[in-house]
């Protein structure tokens, strides 16, 4: 059955069907094979609706809306102009600060999709203007957003922690090292890319220019202050932070800068709704697809067939990496963690692996999977937002995914990358 469904998906996908069709067709075929008719297919609808139910999902439209308001108004430009006065003269500077922004934004939002939207829509035009190719820019944004999953708070880690009875505090701390490692490797790649492609740098700005640009950006600079202060001060949750951003963006652009009219805001909201729908229907049908896979016990069957319980620690880690990576290419990361973690639990226990180490590897793999074709949710978010054809969006992702997989390899080989900080913090 697994093979049939996979074939259906790949063929329909390549033929150029709207991306929900391969998932729907494969899922309904699964239902047909499982129940021998169409009588139970309304459960597919239940699961499509279940997929778009999680409360954390509302962060996505809210960040899209906030980012669009900021970009169409003046907030985003003022912020970026300020950053450029400081780093415009450094080779690869803009690309590196894009990666850094994604990491920082991910640190508060906890959602890779929201990061793609918020950072991407503000910085992609600048990257293009600075002379980076579009496929590089898109790939950079999509993949740097993955770091959001590793840097706390991370909903993926919370769910893994609860299922596997692992300390969430330890997971959070252990994610920081690998997150920074990946940021560093991405920065190196940005530098190499900028050098090889000879991306021009700007003239170094004077301190008075920098001061002036900073003053212009004072209001928008309150965004991070509000988000970070609000979350860590216990005013709102990371999900709610997105809506608060919308409120602040409206106040700024509509009230302070007077750059947008109420009609503009209606138009922006409409386009936000459209993008949300295009992304969420895929999240929903992906959930419906994963239900039938889970119902038919396909992951267990495959793992038993490869003999997961007879593998050594490294074998198990590699199997985990591959399984989570592949699954997240098709299905939402949270669902993948829910379904696969318990399946691997016996093998993890038997080999005596550190559950924190495993958790970080899983988190990294789901992040990578989310940015990997064909169905990585960050990819279709980017397609929906930037209105670029599929190929254009995925073309540049190769080197980034290679770096991420390399990091995953390092993490398997050297657990200290994750566990070092944890051991320092929890040494007693």
């Amino acid at each position, binding site marked *: 059955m697994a093979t049939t469904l996979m074939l259906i998906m790949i063929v329909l996908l390549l033929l150029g069907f709207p991306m929900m069709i391969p998932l729907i067709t494969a899922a309904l075929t699964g239902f047909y094979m499982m*129940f021998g008719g169409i009588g*139970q297919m*309304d*459960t597919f609808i*239940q*699961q499509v609706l*279940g997929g778009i*139910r*999680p*409360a*954390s999902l509302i962060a996505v439209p809210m960040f899209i809306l906030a980012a669009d308001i900021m970009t169409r108004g003046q907030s985003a430009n003022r912020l970026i102009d300020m950053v450029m006065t400081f780093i415009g003269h450094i080779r690869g500077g803009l690309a590196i600060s894009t990666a850094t922004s994604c990491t920082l934004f991910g640190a508060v939002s906890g959602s890779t999709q929201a990061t793609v939207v918020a950072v991407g829509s503000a910085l992609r035009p600048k990257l293009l203007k600075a002379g980076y190719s579009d496929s590089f820019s898109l790939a950079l944004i999509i993949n740097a957003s993955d770091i959001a999953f590793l840097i706390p*708070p991370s*909903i993926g880690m*919370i*769910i893994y*922690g*609860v*299922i596997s*009875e692992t*300390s*969430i*505090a330890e997971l959070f701390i252990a994610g920081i090292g690998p997150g920074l490692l990946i940021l560093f490797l991405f920065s190196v790649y940005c530098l190499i890319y900028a050098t090889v492609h000879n991306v021009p740098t700007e003239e170094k700005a004077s301190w008075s220019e920098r001061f002036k640009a900073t003053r212009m950006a004072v209001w928008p600079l309150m965004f991070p202050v509000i988000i970070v202060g609000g*979350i*860590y*001060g*216990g*005013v*709102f*949750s*990371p*999900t709610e932070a997105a809506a608060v951003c919308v409120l602040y963006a409206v106040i700024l652009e509509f009230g302070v800068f007077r750059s947008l009219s109420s009609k503009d805001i209606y138009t922006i909201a409409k386009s936000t709704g459209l993008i949300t729908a295009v992304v969420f229907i895929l999240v929903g049908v992906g959930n419906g697809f994963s*239900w039938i896979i*889970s*119902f038919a*016990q396909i992951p267990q069957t495959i793992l038993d067939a490869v003999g997961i319980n007879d593998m050594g620690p490294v074998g198990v880690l590699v199997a985990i990496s591959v399984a989570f990576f592949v699954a997240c290419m098709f299905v939402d990361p949270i*669902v993948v963690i*829910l*379904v696969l973690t*318990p399946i691997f*639990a016996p093998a993890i226990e038997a080999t005596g692996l550190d559950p924190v180490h495993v958790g970080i590897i899983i988190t990294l793999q789901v992040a990578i999977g989310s940015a990997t074709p064909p169905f990585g949710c960050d990819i279709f978010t980017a397609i929906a937002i930037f209105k670029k054809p599929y190929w254009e969006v995925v073309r540049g992702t190769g080197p980034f995914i290679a770096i991420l997989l390399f990091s995953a390899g390092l993490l398997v080989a050297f657990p200290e990358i994750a566990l070092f900080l944890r051991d320092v913090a929890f040494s007693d």
Partner: protein
Amino acid sequence: DTWRYAHEEYKGDVQDVYALKFKEYIEDNSEHTLQVYRFGELGESDDIMEQTQAGILQFVNQSPGFTGSLIPEAQIFFIPYLLPTDMETVVKFFRESKAINEDFTELYADKGLELLKMYPEGEMVVTADEPVTNPQDFKGKKIRVMTNPLLSSTYEAFGATPTPLPWGEVYGALQTNMIQGQENPIFWIESGGLYEVSPNLIFTGHGWFTTASMANKDFFDDLSADDKQMVRDASEYAFNETMKHIDGLADRALDKIVKSSDKVTVTRLTDRQIAKFKARAPKVEKTFYEMAGESGKELLQQFKADLDAVAK
């Protein structure tokens, strides 16, 4: 043939123990096999309930906190200080109560479900940012609750501010002090690491986390008399084994918590302190009447009569 059973918890949790014992009995005593699905594998609590009603799943385990949107009377378990804290009496009550074994069976049957067993999972424990010993201490504290009106009513009556929040955000919200507390059975506080961010455990004795195992009624009615009896026996067996499992489970979880953190405090309310909270329970009973109507009222009376009977 293969039967399917879904529950709402993770591997090794109480519902999982029950499900696996149920499976063990069925597979040892019949030709059937039982496939157990855990939380998230087939969707959330409401989803697996619907799938059971639709006959895709033959068995489901759902807690009244979720069943409340289908069967309002099921919220009776959220009325504080209804059940005693002593484990032996509670188990006896679940075994012998007419309210549980007859009245609820009817309520579930109306929704196409054959109630097999209702059983307690563990006593509810409150965790908060500081120890709480009387209702005044709860003032101004936002306590996370499930989206459940009766549960809200309980914490309002206790003097706190009930705050609904999705489970995934609870840990973070406690860490940032967005909320000041939450309630759960002790073994979940342990497995979810909630004591790391909300270290003051308060044994208020106000209730038990209760759950129920059931079958699709059409499926059950179509079984042969032998199979029906076998399923009933399997439920009985799983119930007994699960009660053995939870005996001492709370103590073990508490031990683990106390060992792994110095910040943890444990407060067990005295009878006099409990009396102050208990005095506020009638308010919640009133909310229950509003939601569950006349049949709720009768159920509560039966409940109390059954409790008196087992307390003797």
